[in-house]
């Protein structure tokens, strides 16, 4: 009887069997990579805005405090987006004819808010409160990165639950003195000593129960 298969099939069979192990491992590894990549998390992606607002210019260049615009960050879950009137505090005086600022003037004139596109979007089943984090010594830059270096704003952190829990499980690694919360450039070499001290002082709990955020 004639051979059904060519000799090379032997090699092919072995390669497929052993190769399958690596192929499966590779696919799993690739999926693990994709779900953590900016493709899935939007990390590091600059959003197009109606006005190309530069935090770099306003924060680093002009030295405006975060709270000048994000007024409710210390008292509310939402940090607050400034109304057009806040922009016009200055821009009624300077760059009054700049073409770039036309949407701002139009918004002011027509009393219609500027529709910014949201950069940090959490799923609806997660509750996040800015005030508790700010008041317990978590710096703006801890999550938002060096906003003062962003010409256009992007999401600096992946915002995965993995990332949230990194701090919730070990807050002493990230906590800073309250008076440094709005300092973009804060760096310390003594986190190991001051971290646990601040955790005690501010009475920070390691809140990792589901209902801390999902309620």
């Amino acid at each position, binding site marked *: 009887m004639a051979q*059904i298969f060519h000799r090379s099939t032997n090699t092919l069979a072995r390669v497929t069997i052993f190769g399958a192990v690596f192929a499966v491992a590779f696919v799993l590894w690739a999926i693990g990579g994709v779900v953590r990549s900016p493709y899935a998390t939007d990390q590091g992606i600059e959003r197009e805005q109606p006005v190309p607002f530069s935090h770099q210019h306003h924060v680093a260049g002009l030295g405006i405090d975060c709270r000048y615009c994000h007024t409710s960050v210390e008292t509310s879950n939402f940090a607050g987006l400034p109304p057009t009137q806040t922009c016009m505090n200055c821009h009624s005086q300077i760059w009054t004819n700049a073409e770039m600022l036309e949407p701002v003037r139009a918004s002011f004139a027509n009393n219609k808010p500027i529709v910014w596109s949201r950069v940090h979007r959490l799923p609806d089943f997660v509750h996040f409160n800015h005030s508790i984090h700010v008041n317990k010594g978590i710096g703006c830059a801890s999550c938002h990165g060096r906003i003062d270096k962003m010409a256009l704003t992007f999401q600096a952190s992946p915002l*995965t639950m993995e990332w949230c829990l990194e701090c919730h499980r070990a807050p002493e690694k990230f906590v800073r003195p309250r008076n440094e919360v709005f300092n973009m450039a804060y760096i310390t070499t003594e986190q190991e000593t001051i971290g646990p001290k601040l955790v005690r002082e501010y009475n920070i709990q390691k809140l990792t129960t589901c209902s801390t955020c999902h309620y």
Partner: protein
Amino acid sequence: MPDQTPAHEIRPVTQEIPERFIPVPTVEPGHTFASVTDHISAIVLRKKMPFLWWVGLAASCFGVMVLTATIGKLVLVGVGIWGINHPIGWGFDILNFVWWIGIGHAGTLISAILLLLRQEWRTSINRFAEAMTLFAVSAAGLYPALHTGRPWYDFWLFPYPNTMTLWPQFRSPLMWDVFAVSTYATVSALFWYVGLIPDLATLRDRARGKIARVIYGMLSLGWRGSAKHWFRYESTYLLLAGLSTPLVLSVHTIVSFDFAVAQLPGWHATFFPPYFVAGAVYAGFAMVLTLAIPARKMFHLEDFITMKHLENMGKIMLATGLIVFYSYCMEAFFAYYSGNNFERYMWINRVSGPYWKMYAMLIICNGVAPQMMWFRRMRTSTAGLFAVAMFVNVGMWLERFVIIPTSLHRDFLPSSWGMYHGTRWDWGMFIGSMGLFFFLLFLFVRFLPMISIFEMRTMLPEAQAHPEGHEA
């Protein structure tokens, strides 16, 4: 006394041996190696299938379509289409899951435990029973996967490094279930496939068509039947049998933990693991009989699946049925002996509550019907065996109904009392899963040898080694 006749010579050798002392053979006499191979492989390699096969395939294919429709509806709408609601959160879905998983157990018992115990009669039914196991586990697996409500997230059941840094709840028996059932499915599939390899090679060599030769050739993994191949095959098969053996006990034990670990009267009982395992074997053998009796008729396999096989299965059904019935009695005894009002109420409610008919039918099907197996005449009649097996199939379904919704429908507080009825979608899903099971079985008997050819050959007298100086 020197002249006394030795005892073994007293009985005249011409005396007729009563028929009941003549052992029934595991293979009818008159077969040779070639006739066994011819007979079994011809079922697969022939062109025309019996008319009844087409009828069965069409009917089960319709069942698969019902299944597809119900799953489609479920995915679009959600588990609200089922009858489950507070206080009964587990209905047909879990009930049918346990029913199917239980049915699968006979296959593993036959192929692994009976192999290790050298019960040679297992040989002609093991392939068939293992296929039944696989298809029953497939049907069973559908239920918990769909019960989650969002089946596309079912991979969350497995522990893997996810972006939530969350692990499944390892303390939950439902989690253990995931491992138990997936291990069971994997080992059963491996065991079945490894056992098929020599037969696939036979089919490869006998197939006429090019496509059939290539497909059977690929599946037989280059089997040539050399001594080396056989040596490796035997070691692998024995190792897999060793792996499967604990699974026969562990899988249904863990399924029983789904209930026993909960603190609900009617579920929270220490005897659940052995009770469930016995019930599983009981249900499984009933299903093997349900399938084997028509199959041996349809494909003329009476020579290979002899009355001895059927009778043995009847005996196992009787034995496990008695364990199951003992468990029902113990349930009543524990309720009484616990001195606990809720436990007692649970049992009284089972017997005389709104679902009393279910309980009464359960006792008839699982308690009374298998008693027929005490009688040899019933054990050796295909009609009798088939009837009892059908009773058991229904009875085991009722048992799970009595355990699951009946225990749930009377909560501790009368304000959380309710009733449960399966909706038409529940029934659709049940009929659909049966359709899937039978559809796969009909395809199996068409494309694979339903009896292990090479193992059947070892059953022939020609294959038996003879001691020195004895001629058979």
